[in-house]
Structures are given as C-alpha cells and as structure tokens.
C-alpha cells in the first residue's frame, strides 16, 4: 500500500514509532497499537481481517525491537537504541492505495469473470458474476464504468451501453463506502484479496474509491482500491486497543 492523499487535503504527518518486539514490520503496511496485555509498547502489523486502533501506514521497513540493550549500530538501530523504529504517516483521514489481487498471494493477476460473455442489450447481465461484488468493464463499449451486482450476474444499475458478446468484465469484493462489506487483505497485508467472500465481520478499512483500469492499461495487474482506516488510534471515534 502507499499513501495517496488526505481527505481533508492536509499534508501527511510523519512520525517514527517504535516497533514491537513481537515481529518486524515491512514498508507499505498499516500498523496498529499492540493489544498485548502484558508487554509491548510498539506498533504491530494489522491482520488480514482486522485493523483496530490503526496508527498509520509505514513508509519504510523495520526489524522487531530487541528487549535487551544492543551495541551501538547493531541491528536496525541507528543510534544504539535497542528499539527499532518505522516511519509512519499518522493522519486519521489518510487514504491508502491498495492493489487488487486475485487471492491472498501478493501480485497475482486478477481474472476476467467469463471468456464467454453473452450479449446483453439492456446492459444488465454479466455472465458468471458474484452477488454484491463490484464489476467493471475490462473491454468493450462500457470501459470506464463500474457497477455493483445485485444477485449473481445482474447489476443493480445497467451499464450505459449494450454489452456485446465476448466483452470482458472483472469483479472485486470491495465496494465503495459500504459499511458492512469490509475488505480482506493479502497475506503480507500490502494488498487486497479481491476474491474474498463478503465478510461483514471484518473490522478494518472502508473503500473510498476504486481505480479500476481496463485492458489497454493492464487492469488485471494495475487496479486499486483506495481505502481508509475505519478505526484509527488518533481519531476521536477510533476504538483503541487495551
């Protein structure tokens, strides 16, 4: 993931946070406060399905902190401090760009829904779609438009132009501004699993907008969801870990 913009138009606010001793953090991953009740005062990675008390998005990598003191210059410590640190953009209204991914493994290309799309003069029927997913035109006359399925194969609002046979469409489980349909992150937390089933139980991110590209722009490898944390530690409405 990477920082895209702040909804309020403000500049990114940067801080360096100590990383928890439990695990390293990689660059481009949302981090949250540590819920460990016994110890830890550093940030940790979010999980694939939960991000509660998000602190921000990392813009560099860091090893896990060591509990014992270390020699100056050792490990990830720049000054002999045994606490590793990661640079984090902490704005609560920051929007992160996350690549849409075909499954949990990073950088797996999305797939066209069906290679045998039937013609639909009404622009409403997509062969092989998934209920409640977002669908967009990958080729054909409707390129540049996205819709949402309201039942398998049927979109709630018709595409603006007739669908020709063999037009190509791609779908993702993410939906803009949907408060009960949360995304599932990829294994390394840097992208979004666009194939994950609708999971109302996830508590992590809200989709602000989509960047859904077409065939001419390699949309299977180059489409993104722009998301923001639903529970941010520095937002007064955020839910904080214990």
């Amino acid at each position: 993931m990477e920082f895209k913009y702040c909804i309020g138009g403000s500049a990114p606010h940067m801080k360096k946070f100590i990383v928890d001793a439990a695990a390293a953090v990689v660059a481009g991953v949302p981090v949250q406060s540590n819920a460990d009740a016994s110890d830890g005062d550093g940030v940790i990675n979010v999980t694939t399905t939960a991000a509660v008390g998000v602190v921000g998005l990392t813009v560099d990598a860091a090893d896990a902190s060591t509990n014992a003191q270390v020699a100056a210059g050792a490990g990830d410590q720049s000054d002999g401090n045994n606490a590793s640190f990661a640079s984090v953009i902490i704005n609560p209204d920051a929007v992160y760009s996350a690549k849409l991914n075909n499954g949990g493994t990073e950088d797996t290309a999305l797939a066209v829904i069906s290679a045998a799309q039937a013609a639909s003069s009404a622009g409403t029927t997509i062969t092989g779609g998934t209920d409640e997913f977002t669908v967009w035109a990958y080729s054909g006359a409707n390129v540049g438009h996205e819709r949402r399925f309201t039942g398998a194969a049927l979109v709630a609002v018709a595409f603006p132009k007739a669908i020709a046979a063999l037009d190509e469409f791609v779908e993702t489980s993410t939906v803009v501004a949907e408060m009960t349909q949360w995304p599932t992150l990829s294994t390394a937390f840097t992208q979004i699993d666009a194939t994950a089933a609708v999971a109302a139980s996830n508590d992590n991110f809200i989709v602000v907008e989509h960047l859904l590209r077409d065939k001419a722009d390699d949309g299977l490898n180059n489409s993104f969801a722009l998301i923001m944390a639903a529970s941010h530690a520095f937002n007064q409405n955020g839910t904080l870990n214990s």
Partner: protein
Amino acid sequence: MSSAPNSPTLILPKRLSPSSGWDEKPQAPARPAKRPKVAEHPGRDFGEVAGSYIDGLVARAKTIWLCWSCRHKFDHASAHYFYEKNLRVTGRCDGCREHRPDSHLFIHESLLCDSGGKIRHGLVWTPRNG
C-alpha cells in the same frame, strides 16, 4: 468563624443555603479506559551530531524528512534517495528535531514505484507528478 486550614470558606446570604453534597471532594477526571500502546521513537539523541544520525538512517534505508533549513545539507542523490518535490509533510525534522510543517520528504530508491505506478506498483511511494 473558624475553618480547617486550606479548606474553602463559603459565605452565603442568610436566605440561601448550600445544596446537599456541595462540599464533597470533586471526582477525579475521567481517564480513557483504553490507550494505545505505542511509543514514538525519540529520534536523534541530544549530543549526537545530526549528520551521524542521518547517516544511520541512510544506512538502513529509512524515510527522511527535513525542514527547509536542514534540507540543503542532505545530498539525497548520492545517498540514493528520491526527493518528493511535489508534496510537503509535517513532522519533527530529522536534522534539527524541530517540529515543522512544510518539511521535505526523501524516500529511499528501493521503496520507490515507477512514475504512474504501473510497473512496480504496490510498493511504498509513487512519485507525484507536477
């Protein structure tokens, strides 16, 4: 009228009487039930030369932000850093430790996407155009 030392003395007109419980100790201010367990790294130690601290950040490919007065002291190109000219950030300067708005951001090249983000997308930073 006598009163205990340091206790407040309230003088009221005869027609008024204090309500019950007026002299009870005030409640302690509410504390948040839950707090995030994170700590900010202090950055450069006092006494440490700023250049040495920056060198440590460079050796570990850390993201660096510098205020307008420290920015010119950092040769980002020779350190293999990208200077994001089209975006300013807010934060405590890695050089002088002063909290400054309008700071300059430097990202290590290993964390950089290509312009437009089409080839090395999904990394950490795509250069802002114009």
